[in-house]
């Protein structure tokens, strides 16, 4: 990374971390004031107590890092205490939902592009489907779907899929229509059928749009899977860790789960970005 890009980023990140450490002092004052006075006061005691509370209002960065270390590397990955185990529970339904939603989105887009009346009747409802705060009602849907006797992972994946398909549909409709008139005319002079035009022209042309949509989709799929775990007193998963942490006041547990989820989301997006770069390169795109 070039210095003129890295320097501002590092400065801002450093400023955030310093502000975080400083904020720990007033935020944790409720818990620490008495201890500091008994210990004799002074700035050293103030910092020592504010940054090392067991159940802080705002944990300091190094506490969060230590908690992540303890729950990721210091325990066996398949035990109930391991964050990796919970992350896997959430990620598995995220990925199933992502694949379901992605396929549904692509199929809908192909239908919309090829059948005129489908666009008129379906497109407004595809858009309207997103004005329902689905994430907010996800827990209810989980309870209801749970009663139908389907496996747990599938019900959570349904929520992720519902969230996923919309960006993919919108992006793919745009992408499948992106070849210009000249190229379409060329296909017509070759007497290409609709499916040949789709495979040889429209789908390759839509790849950049597909990847842009998929990156958005995978992030909201993870969010969907986490929220879907909130009700029903879920036993495993990142969402269950958050809920447990908030019930028992385990602030460190909440923060650690949040950071691990954030890390997972960033990794998923980064992986898709890598896939995008390599596949577009093979198709001859200039970067």
């Amino acid at each position: 990374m070039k210095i003129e890009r890295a320097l501002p980023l590092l400065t801002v990140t450093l400023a955030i971390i310093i502000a975080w450490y400083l904020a720990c002092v007033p935020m944790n004052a409720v818990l620490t004031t008495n201890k500091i006075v008994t210990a004799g006061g002074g700035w050293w005691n103030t910092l020592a107590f504010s940054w090392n509370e067991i159940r802080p209002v705002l944990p300091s960065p190094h506490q969060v890092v230590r908690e992540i270390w303890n729950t990721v590397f210091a325990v066996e990955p398949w035990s109930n205490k391991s964050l990796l185990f919970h992350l896997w529970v959430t990620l598995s339904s995220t990925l199933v939902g992502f694949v379901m939603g992605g396929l549904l989105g692509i199929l809908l887009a192909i239908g919309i592009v090829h059948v005129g009346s489908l666009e008129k009747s379906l497109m407004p409802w595809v858009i309207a489907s997103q004005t329902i705060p689905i994430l907010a009602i996800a827990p209810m849907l989980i309870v209801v779907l749970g009663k139908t006797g389907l496996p747990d992972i599938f019900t959570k994946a349904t929520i992720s899929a519902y969230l996923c398909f919309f960006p993919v549909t919108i992006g793919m409709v745009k992408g499948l229509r992106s070849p210009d008139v000249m190229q379409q005319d060329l296909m017509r002079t070759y007497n290409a059928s609709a499916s040949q035009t789709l495979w040889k022209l429209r789908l390759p042309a839509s790849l950049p749009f597909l990847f842009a949509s998929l990156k958005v989709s995978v992030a909201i799929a993870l969010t969907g899977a986490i929220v879907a775990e909130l009700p029903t007193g879920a036993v495993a998963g990142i969402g269950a860790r958050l809920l447990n942490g908030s019930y028992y006041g385990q602030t460190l547990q909440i923060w650690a789960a949040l950071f691990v989820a954030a890390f997972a989301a960033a990794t998923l997006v980064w992986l898709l970005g890598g896939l995008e770069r390599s596949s577009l390169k093979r198709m001859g795109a200039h970067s």
Partner: protein
Amino acid sequence: MTRAIAIFMAAIVCASLVALSFSGANPPTGQDWALSLAFVITSWMAAWSFSWIADLTLPENLSQFLVPALFGVGVVAAWQVYVHASHIPVVLLPAPSQIAAKFASALPTLGADFVQTILRAVIPGWLMGCGAGFLTALVCDKYDFLKRGLLPLGNLVAALPIVGVAPILVMWFGFDWPSKAAMVVVMTFFPMLINTLAGLSAAGNMERDLLNSYAANWPTTLLKLRLPAAMPFIFNALKINSTLAMIGAIVAEFFGTPIVGMGFRMSTEVGRQGLDMVWAEIAMAAMTGSFFYGCLALLERKVTFWHPSYRR
């Protein structure tokens, strides 16, 4: 035309046949679920071919609004028929008529929830979050160093599962509406920041050069050229945020709440198997969301009348 009518007739016949062959057993058997799937597909075919016929027969200016409306009516009608035909328990899926009846009878409760969640948490939070994001974007625009530092972070945060912050905010701001409003602020801030920054760089070089040659200073360029050019992006963020705001407020209520609010009502009614009330809340949320979206779309049309997508 004949093809559309043929598909419509065939779909109606198949859907009725499926509807008549439900066993009506409680709990529903595996065969009933297969039939349900068949019913969904056939009735969707019927609604689609029906709107196709409407599309072919109606004049262009009418069909634009009527076709999606007819499709929606078809879906609701199929839902009603399905609930009656399959004898599906109310705890799984109430009929639209039951939901409408509950909506009418529970209006005072729904009103109280609306005030608590929408008026106290969503709207103030949405205004504050969007406002703060917008102002931060302006500051970033003025100081390029800050922009190069904040933009990558903003892009990263936008991809993170921010709803997870809800338990922390509930711990900090208490059970009542301030924590929900704070949640909405956190959720709406970054989309607004990113979109405004993208919008501010949308003005063309030619126009910028023109203002430069007029010796226009930063505020003038901003007001006369770059903010108007950024409006499509800003409205995009406002629309995204209107949905995010509802989600944030309702999800934050799952982590602790006074005994009023849409999220609270939904989670308790699910526990009491009052699914008709849950669906009434969902209907209210959907109507509020669509209303917001519609208002923003109208306003956008007024403000960005010059944009290619609105030109005729």
